[in-house]
């Protein structure tokens, strides 16, 4: 098993305290797990590729737009039937479906991105730690690769607010 400290906290605030303390002690590798978006989850400097999401949604939207255009123009051309005296390719009419598909694709890509990316990010925290978190318990994980015993002790002290701390 990996070398890490798993501290379990009973309430969000003590977890937040501990994390702040760790940061002051220049422990930057700590991670926190919580079942609700307490402020504590923002005490670890917002890890993860979340900035990508906006771009992904944008690209998805544009894809949808072009798909709609292609579909409408191509099929209308292939049917080549006049209705109500309107031109075969009448953009005003096509606009609606373009908009809908843009939105649809943007949404889908955004969601898919979320699912896949979070699947990756959560792997940086050990499964053991992930099992610990429940509604009324927050978990702080501090990896201990190559740090001395007294350093570890120091960290344990910083985590003193925890209900329990497991190696």
């Amino acid at each position, binding site marked *: 098993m990996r070398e890490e400290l798993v501290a379990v906290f009973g309430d969000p605030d003590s977890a937040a305290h501990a994390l702040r303390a760790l940061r002051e002690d220049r422990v930057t590798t700590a991670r926190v797990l919580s079942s609700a978006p307490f402020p504590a989850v923002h005490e670890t400097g917002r890890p993860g590729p979340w900035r990508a999401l906006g771009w992904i949604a944008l690209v998805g939207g544009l894809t949808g737009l072009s798909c709609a255009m292609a579909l409408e123009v191509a099929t209308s051309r292939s049917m*080549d*039937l006049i209705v109500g005296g309107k031109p075969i390719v009448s953009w005003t009419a096509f606009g609606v479906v373009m908009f809908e598909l843009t939105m649809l694709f943007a949404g889908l890509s955004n969601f898919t991105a979320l*699912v*896949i990316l979070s699947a990756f990010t959560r792997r940086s925290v050990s499964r053991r730690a992930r099992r610990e978190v429940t509604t009324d318990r927050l978990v702080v994980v501090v990896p201990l690769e190559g740090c001395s015993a007294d350093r570890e002790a120091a960290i344990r002290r910083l985590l003193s607010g925890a209900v329990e701390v497991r190696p």
Partner: protein
Amino acid sequence: MRARSRTKVMLALAAAAIVGGLAVARGRSEAQTPSPAPTSAGVGTVGDVPFDHTIHAGKYGIPCLDCHAFADKSPVAGLPSGRKCMGCHKFVAKEKPAVQTLAAHVEAGEPLRWQRVFSVPDFVYFSHRMHVRANVACAECHGDVAAMKTVVQQRAFTMGRCMGCHKERNATHDCLGCHK
């Protein structure tokens, strides 16, 4: 790990659902145009006069229009009358038992019942006349009948097939050309 595999599962399921849905839809639309099942019951009368295209059209190379005489003047191609059959068989192969039964039928004035192989749904108005006039070879739709002992429909008459050919030859693709 497990999370990711679950994701995959989910996506796979979704894909399957979509594909399946389309498949069903397609099936329904096919069902709408009854594509005639290739019939093994030979083309011929109630059964006792077996007719063989390989001999007539194949071996002796009799042109289609000789027997299907209306193909160039009517929407329906038509079938040879008993008298027409006898026109040749009075002299040709009259010793063959099948031909003798045929003769008997015609003598008794019993019409031959021919098995239907090709058909289009009742909302489609196909005109042999216009297609023959446009020099569409019979085989293009009916297949190489001359080589078939029993005529079977190899490809269903789907609308896509009609449209394909019409676009190719840049014939009308006005719906009212076939649907009236």
